[in-house]
């Protein structure tokens, strides 16, 4: 699968990442202080980051499946991002919320934060890898008993 990818696949992912990261810097979402000011209602500007991003992506998610069947670089069908709902969405969302409220940083913003010079964010990135490892280790041990795991994103 890796070998028959389109030669522009990774360059396009990279360019998308560049714009994404530039936007996180420009919006100051890469600054934990700004996220914390939002969560304590001192500056509600972050609403515009979230809705601005969701509206732009929402247009593409709504339009593309109607006008084209498959993406040029992968042949993947254009689909919306739909995930099944179960209690993990609430449990995980709750744990994420506590962590976001303590630190003011989420994964994408942490990567961009490193880019704007914030080496201190390595503490958060180390924590994120540790946390991802803890849950992955635990779930790997317990998943073997279950039938099949659903495809991840």
């Amino acid at each position, binding site marked *: 699968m890796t070998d028959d990818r389109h030669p522009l696949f990774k360059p396009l992912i990279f360019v998308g990442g560049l714009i994404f990261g530039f936007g996180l810097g420009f919006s100051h979402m890469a600054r934990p202080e700004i996220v914390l000011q939002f969560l304590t209602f001192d*500056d509600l500007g972050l609403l515009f980051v979230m809705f601005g991003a969701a509206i732009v992506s929402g247009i593409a*998610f709504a339009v593309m499946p109607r006008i084209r069947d498959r993406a040029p670089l992968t042949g993947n069908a254009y689909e919306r991002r739909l995930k099944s709902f179960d209690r993990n969405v609430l449990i995980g969302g709750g744990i994420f919320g506590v962590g976001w409220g303590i630190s003011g940083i989420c994964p994408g913003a942490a990567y961009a934060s490193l880019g704007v010079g914030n080496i201190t964010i390595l503490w958060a990135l180390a924590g994120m890898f540790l946390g991802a490892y803890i849950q992955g280790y635990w779930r790997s041990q317990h998943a073997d008993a279950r039938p099949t795991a659903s495809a991840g994103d």
Partner: protein
Amino acid sequence: MVTDPVALQVAADLFPNGISRYAVGGMLVGLGAVVIYLGTGIPAGASTFLESTLSYVSGQSRFQRYVASRDWRVVFTLGIILGGFLFALTVQSGLVSSSLYQSGTTGQLHQLGGFTFWTTNVQPWRLFLGGTLVGIGTRIGKGCTSGHGVCGVGSASKTSIVGVITFLAVAIGTAQIVAALGVTP
């Protein structure tokens, strides 16, 4: 035009840094996700990178399921880091200026080789402890601010909307408690 002084005062209280940098930055974040989606059909999320990258060093089944996507997820994350870096070299350093951008006063600025870099004042223990919970929660909860918040909400996914409301409400409560306990910054 809104000229009502009360409305203007309320807006200034709620949005002390204006809204343009937030709206423009958010639209760029969405645009980055759209570029990837148009070319590949992939609704990209940022937190899967954590697990997919762990598959390079751990044989746990939970990480191995991401082997097929781990290389491009590294590319995506490098792009995000360099995108932030590009922002630092241009707008943050003042070499590119725009009336849509307000620089703000948070954190520390550092001059290096003619460019301006930024570091946070938020304490390392908060970043590490919070980051650990973010790492656990985003992976159990099937997405983070980009996967659920940008692509999921953009897809009008009920799961993502419930996920966003959950982590947003809990984060607001947590941040208020931490602030009330006098922890700053």
